């Protein structure tokens, strides 16, 4: 085996194979992206265009869906409409055209803010607790280490509905029902398993020699942890945080069962956005689009660590 052969190894697929592979993969990608594109497009259609048959590929773009998403409106008699002062904004004008008056803001923004608060709160908590625990599991002799690690992982696998029953009862007793704090604690308990497993993997990759050297220089173990290990683990911590964020952001089962008002997040809210005579699909699509955008951005940022995240750190590529 000469260098020439192994450099362009015999296993390199032929150009034809590559081309066929490319065509099939790209076709699959385009097909799976259609539903997502359809969501974005529907958000800019008028309600009648959205439910037209055959489905309209091109429609006159309008912001009506977004207006309906952010406002509640009431239908008024033409006499009443005539007496109103001129419309003040874009959304105002759009709703006047439909013989409606804007009655106030909708619940979408509060729900979105709830999602933000709960997702970031639980992520921060899981990453802090997870980093500490992962370091301990990575560096120290902990009795029953494997059992503790398995126990931590198994908490994530539990069926949410089964967990929700006792949590519902417990939160009712503690006054945590439908509170952001309650949801933050609950999501943290689910996310912490992923955080510990992932971060342990990242910490295992940081050579112990670094800390040992620091400790020879007079650092204590804690100082070595803060000054040497944490900076080295930054990439891992950020990747883990994004994973926790995505889970908390997307979660539905706990949210729909345990929240109804003040702490309700966006996922249980978006499906119940209704207009006159059923679901207001452009508004739902608009709400969905705004809800999905952060995740699309994060997915692109995270693409190098995705595999690690979904296998709890077992596969590192």
């Amino acid at each position: 085996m000469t260098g020439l052969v192994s450099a362009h190894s015999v296993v390199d697929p032929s150009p034809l194979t590559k081309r066929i592979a490319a065509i099939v993969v790209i076709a699959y990608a385009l097909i799976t992206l259609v539903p997502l594109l359809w969501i974005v497009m529907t958000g800019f259609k008028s309600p009648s265009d959205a439910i037209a048959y055959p489905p309209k590929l091109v429609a006159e773009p309008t912001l009506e869906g977004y207006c309906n998403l952010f406002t509640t409106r009431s239908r008024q008699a033409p006499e009443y409409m005539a007496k109103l002062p001129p419309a003040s904004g874009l959304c105002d004008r759009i709703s006047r055209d439909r013989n409606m008056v804007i009655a106030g803001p909708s619940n979408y923004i509060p729900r979105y803010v709830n999602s933000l608060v709960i997702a970031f709160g639980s992520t921060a908590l899981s990453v802090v607790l997870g980093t500490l625990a992962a370091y301990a599991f990575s560096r120290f002799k902990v009795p029953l280490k494997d059992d503790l690690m398995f126990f931590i992982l198994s908490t994530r696998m539990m069926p949410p509905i089964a967990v929700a029953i006792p949590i519902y009862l417990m939160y009712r007793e503690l006054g945590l029902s439908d509170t952001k704090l309650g949801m933050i604690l609950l999501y943290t308990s689910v996310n912490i398993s992923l955080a510990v497993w992932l971060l342990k993997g990242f910490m295992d990759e940081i050579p112990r020699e670094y800390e040992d050297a620091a400790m020879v220089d007079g650092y204590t173990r804690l100082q070595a942890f803060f000054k040497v290990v944490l900076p080295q683990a930054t990439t891992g911590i950020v990747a883990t945080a994004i994973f926790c964020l995505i889970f908390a952001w997307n979660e539905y089962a706990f949210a729909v069962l345990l929240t109804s008002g003040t702490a309700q997040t966006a996922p249980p809210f978006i499906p119940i956005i209704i207009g006159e005579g059923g679901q207001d699909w452009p508004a739902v699509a608009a709400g969905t689009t705004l809800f999905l955008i952060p995740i699309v951005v994060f997915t692109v940022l995270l693409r190098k660590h995705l595999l690690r995240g979904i296998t709890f750190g077992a596969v590192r590529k």
Partner: protein
Amino acid sequence: MTDQTGLSGLVDRAALVTSPVVARRVRGLSERAIAWLFITPTMLLLLAINIFPLIWTIRLSFTNYRANRPNATVLDVGLANYQSILTDPDVWAAMTVTARFVFWSILIQTVIGFTLAWLIDKKFRGHGLWTTLILLPMMLSPAVVGNFWTFLYQPQIGLFNYVVAALTGAPASSFQMLAQVPLAPWAIVIVDTWMWTPYVMLICLAGLRSIPDYIYEAAEVDRASPWRQFWSITLPMALPFIMLAVLFRGIENFKMFDMVNLLTGGGPGSTTEMASITLKREAFEKWRTGYSSAFAIILFVTVFGLANIYVKALNRVKSR
């Protein structure tokens, strides 16, 4: 905060401010003390939010407690809840509905996912970009996106019906994916496949990339046909990874709730009523808390058992 290095500066200053005695005590923290200090908060949280509720559920599963009647007397019913769940043909039917969903969704996802991974592993130009695009659906909220699929599945106006009509010639209003008994389970399988095939693909891809080139080179020297190479090298060596993906997706789909709840809510009739939907009805609509606690424990134990096998599979992959 004039310190230049945030956290580490904080530690230094804390050491400066604290009295020498305390400082010595902190400095002298043994490794064991640090280990426990670092692990305890996590354990306490999991004890409070996972273990304590679990024990409570076990306790409740032997009673006839109803959460909507907190003042009614609670009777100890022994194993009656378990007995009635495990002999009830309706619950059994929910389990078989779950089983059918798990079987078909996992089978289809594995076949498509592995094929895609195998094609991407041919390393055509731009495969990185397309891989990232393919991965998008699995990162999105199953509930929010699942909800949108009800729009795509609308009879007459839905895009899905339109495309099927255009491809087969059958009128778009002649079938209702979510409302017809033979179609509803498939409607859910399709959305689940759309969403989670990328997951299987990603893990299979890792499996394929873990096969060292020299094995193929040796096979090439032995003049093994591509067909043989696939069956005797590619597939067996990627198998642990495929198992990993199948197990994890199996566990996830066994407890599937969000997508089904939004797409069909268990209907039409009880065609798509999976275990978690039944559990939700018993627990949060009929408020049979004791009964549903027993049901929850049954699901718990099943998932816990599968998780044991999953971790075994994880470790096997890790050693590669």
